[in-house]
């Protein structure tokens, strides 16, 4: 991926005053060792404000989602972490009257640029949703191949077979479904459906995977399976995950960002972001400590 690196370098030169924090520059410039030899991409948010009409939902978030790491977004309900996550692949604007201010870049390219096609952004930044949502009209196979089928361009059957198998293996679902690929996706259990949705998301080979409370509808066993999967997927992708589950954040993530809502009606803010270990053991903000230790401020 030399091309991507070149683009980033150019952009960095272009707006030098907006130089990202040194930590992220280091980690991006040194391609993280990954199985494919494919460095994942960095998302940076600078001064992001999110609105629903007149309602100011999230205020002034500046943070970096680092490549080949799992970044967990935690915080109480309504503090804007899901809204922020959805702004990272331009899903936020699908809600009527939703607005974004500030800058969000993918390896230096502004994803909200006037010449940027949101469809292209979403191809590069995939998403897994809170409740499993396989397409009800499609079989397991077609669900995984949906991204390929839906995005025009004929793909050869053999190639498609290979991608479906690889994605299902990647999502640890292959062995459970290989004999019934033609059955509807809705015939699977909740945990399997969520893994199917992950397979569907990784089948289009995105650079970044956003997960919005992917385990909230699942039992502990299925949750553990998904967490293990997340740990493996970070070798290939950049992952951001919203979770309400402290243990999950501490188990599965490398970096944790804590969002808080000072009071109802006010916008949610990013209080603190840092290595998960630090956030959970010695956070620098009192509010973070209260939240992670269960004493809600």
């Amino acid at each position, binding site marked *: 991926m030399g091309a991507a690196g070149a683009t980033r370098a150019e952009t960095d030169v272009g707006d030098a005053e907006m130089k990202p924090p040194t930590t992220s520059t280091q980690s991006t410039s040194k391609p993280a060792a990954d199985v494919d030899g494919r460095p994942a991409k960095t998302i940076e948010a600078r001064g992001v404000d999110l609105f629903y009409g007149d309602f100011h939902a999230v205020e002034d978030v500046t943070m970096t989602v680092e490549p080949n790491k799992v970044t967990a977004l935690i915080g109480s309900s309504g503090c804007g972490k899901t809204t922020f996550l959805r702004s990272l692949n331009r899903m936020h604007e699908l809600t009527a009257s939703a607005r974004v201010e500030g800058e969000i870049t993918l390896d230096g390219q502004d994803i909200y640029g006037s010449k940027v096609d949101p469809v292209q952004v*979403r191809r590069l930044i995939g998403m897994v*949703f809170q409740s499993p949502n396989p*397409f009800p009209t499609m079989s397991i196979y077609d669900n995984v191949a949906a*991204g390929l089928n839906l995005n025009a361009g004929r793909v050869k059957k053999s190639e498609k077979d290979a991608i479906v198998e690889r994605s299902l293996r990647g999502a640890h679902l292959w062995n459970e479904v290989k004999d019934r690929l033609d059955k509807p996706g809705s015939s699977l259990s909740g945990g399997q459906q969520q893994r199917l949705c992950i397979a569907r998301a990784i089948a289009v080979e995105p650079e970044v995977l956003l997960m919005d409370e992917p385990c909230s509808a699942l039992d502990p066993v299925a949750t553990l399976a998904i967490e293990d999967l997340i740990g493996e997927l970070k070798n290939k992708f950049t992952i951001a995950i919203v979770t309400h589950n402290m243990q999950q954040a501490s188990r599965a993530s490398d970096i944790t960002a804590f969002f808080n809502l000072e009071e109802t009606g006010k916008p949610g803010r990013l209080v603190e972001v840092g290595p998960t270990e630090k956030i959970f053991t010695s956070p620098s903000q009192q509010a973070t400590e209260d939240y992670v230790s269960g004493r809600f401020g």
Partner: protein
Amino acid sequence: MNTTLETGVLPDWSAYGVVAASAALAAALLLAAGAFSVALLLVATVFVAAIVTYTWSRRIEGPRRAKDRLVTLTIVAAFGLALIPLLSLVFEVAKRGIPGLSLEFLTESARGHIGGGGAAHALVGTLVITGVAALISIPIGLMAAIYLTEYGGGRLGRGLTFFVDVMTGIPSIVAGLFAYALFALIFGPGIRLGVMGSVALSVLMIPIVIRTSEEVLKIVPNHLREASYALGTPKWRTIVKVVLPTAFAGLITGMMIAVARIIGETAPLLVTTGVVDSINSNPFSGRMQNLAVYAYSEYRTPGVFKQASYDRAWAAALTLIVIVMVLNLVARLIYRRYRTEIR
């Protein structure tokens, strides 16, 4: 306070028993009063049954159960009341229509028969006119519904919704006159074409298609659209590949019902397609008969053999009802076969 869980319970047969006893009692009362009729008997039975059920249940089961039984009885009675006109209509049309039905009725036109012949020309006309109307209305209606659910929301969307609501209330004769005026302006007065009837029916059908399709498309959960967008799928492909297939069964059902609604229209066709005796299957040339107008004209201007004309009118009505029933059955079958479980 009484804390026992057990209360008295009426026996299982009580509901039927009460109704039967009430019917007997009501019959006796009416006969005694010398004012017996079936309608009065039914009304009196419901009243007596309501009183008996309530008092009996209240004494044994308590006031809550008694109210429950009373309301259940009222609802069942209302259901029966709604069913009576429907059943009696179907029964009456079948009784009077079957004598007029014959192979000749379905295969011959009225051309060259003095006071006889069949309704094949009307059957062909009905199918062609309705078919063309569906060809016009379904694409327009479906696309308008897609606009309203997927794109609309602004002033244009609200305006469209308002006018669709207004259009559903247009008297059908107005639709007929509109189509007549439109074609008369282009081709001169006195024009009668099958396609004019189709245009008139489309004016009535489009709002129905829009309304039903819109409701069905609205049910498609948003998380499916989002899942598709998150895969980097453009909006139009999301609509074609995800939204429409998910709503497929409902859309087809809605369209069948829209067809069934307009297939029996009479007034707009009377002024647009005219009355004719011979088979004409070309909607762009000359007058075209249809079943509803056929039934109307056979009854209004019977020939020499009046009873035969009346029989044919009833048979035409029966044929229409059968067509509508078949359409509805097919719609249901399609719905069962293709519906998608949506959470």
